[in-house]
């Protein structure tokens, strides 16, 4: 009987001969494995999956590892949607998520999101249309009802075309942001729990430090990511704040005759709330 991959054999021997093994168990040590075998930790982890499938090793994971899987998946997805990373870099991130997913027993669903950089022109056009609607609203009392209705019909008809090509990308961005914010909140809650535990214990443990510091760097990474998205959106839709500020007024004015305006405004408001909440998160200690 043999193992399919040479790497798996080398990992098995390395685990069996690792001086840090305690009985039958050992913690995964990326640095030690890379020092012994060369290569990257993720390759070793991938090779270990074959050992797991052959029933030679069993993975024991805590919820931190599952959270790491969600973190990597959410980060890769948002970076893809926002176009912050090249396709091959995103693919590498997704590979990591897939490896962890196999360990924690979670599938990685196929992502069919649209990318913001592919729709920058459409988003700029949306910005222009929303600006026109704002101006129309401001000038409502200055013109006759007939003129207002005529201009409104024309602007809304142009807006309908633009919204068609931006709805999907905004929806992709909102979904990716929602996933990231959910993971970010989980990291914040877990970190607070660990800090509380440390306080109750009255002393510090190396494991608690490792986990709380990792969570903190994860939260900070997400926050930087949200700031990048914020800048990206403001670049694509320069009147972002103005539109968000008048979203409710615009919605009540145009939603009835043009439901798509309501949809796009709700998408933008929701994205704005998530960005704001994430960027302004207070971390405490």
């Amino acid at each position, binding site marked *: 009987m043999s193992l399919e991959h*040479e790497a798996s054999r080398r990992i098995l021997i390395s685990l069996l001969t690792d*001086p840090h093994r305690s009985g039958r168990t*050992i913690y995964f*040590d*990326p640095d030690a494995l890379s020092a012994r075998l060369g290569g990257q*930790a*993720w390759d070793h982890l991938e090779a*270990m999956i074959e050992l797991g499938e052959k029933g030679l*090793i069993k993975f024991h994971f805590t919820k931190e590892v599952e959270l790491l899987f969600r973190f990597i998946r959410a980060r890769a997805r948002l970076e893809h949607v926002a176009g912050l990373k090249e396709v091959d870099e995103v693919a590498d991130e997704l590979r990591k998520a897939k490896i962890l997913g196999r360990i924690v027993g979670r599938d990685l669903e196929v992502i069919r999101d649209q990318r913001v950089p592919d729709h920058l022109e459409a988003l700029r056009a949306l910005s222009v249309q929303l600006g026109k609607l704002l101006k129309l609203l401001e000038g409502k009392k200055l013109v006759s009802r007939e003129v207002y209705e005529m201009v409104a019909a024309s602007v809304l008809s142009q807006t309908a075309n633009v919204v068609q090509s931006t709805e999907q990308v905004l929806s992709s961005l909102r979904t990716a942001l929602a996933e990231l914010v959910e993971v970010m909140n989980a990291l914040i809650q877990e970190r607070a729990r660990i800090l509380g535990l440390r306080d109750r214990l009255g002393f510090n443990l190396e494991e608690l430090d490792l986990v709380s510091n990792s969570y903190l760097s994860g939260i900070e990474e997400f926050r930087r990511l949200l700031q990048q998205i914020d800048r990206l959106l403001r670049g694509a839709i320069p009147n972002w704040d103005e539109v968000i500020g008048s979203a409710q007024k615009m919605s009540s004015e145009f939603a009835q005759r043009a439901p798509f305006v309501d949809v796009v405004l709700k998408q933008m408001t929701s994205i704005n709330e998530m960005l704001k909440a994430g960027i302004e998160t207070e971390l405490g200690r």
Partner: protein
Amino acid sequence: MSAGSGGLEDLLKRLRLEIVGDFRQYLNALEQTGDGSWEVALTEKAEAFAGTMECPVDREEVRIEESVLCPICYTPYHVDCAKILASRSEKCWKCERFDRFDLLLRGR
């Protein structure tokens, strides 16, 4: 960012592995197909892994999961026997090339 270099990926260190199942049958598959001394040394040792292993200090059987292996020749020692070698800074009784058993016993 690679795992182990800081950041959230440090959480990979919280992944605990348990060696289960009969791994000896897979060790037999080791042949001189690799590129380094690892494979050569392990091929020589494969038979020992597959059969009963004997600690050269007390000549008693030692189970691999409870053993300390000389990192050069993979001769298995009982933990207690390895501790004796470590306390006297003795070399491996088989290959006589390794004398830092204290490093292998850290935390045991």
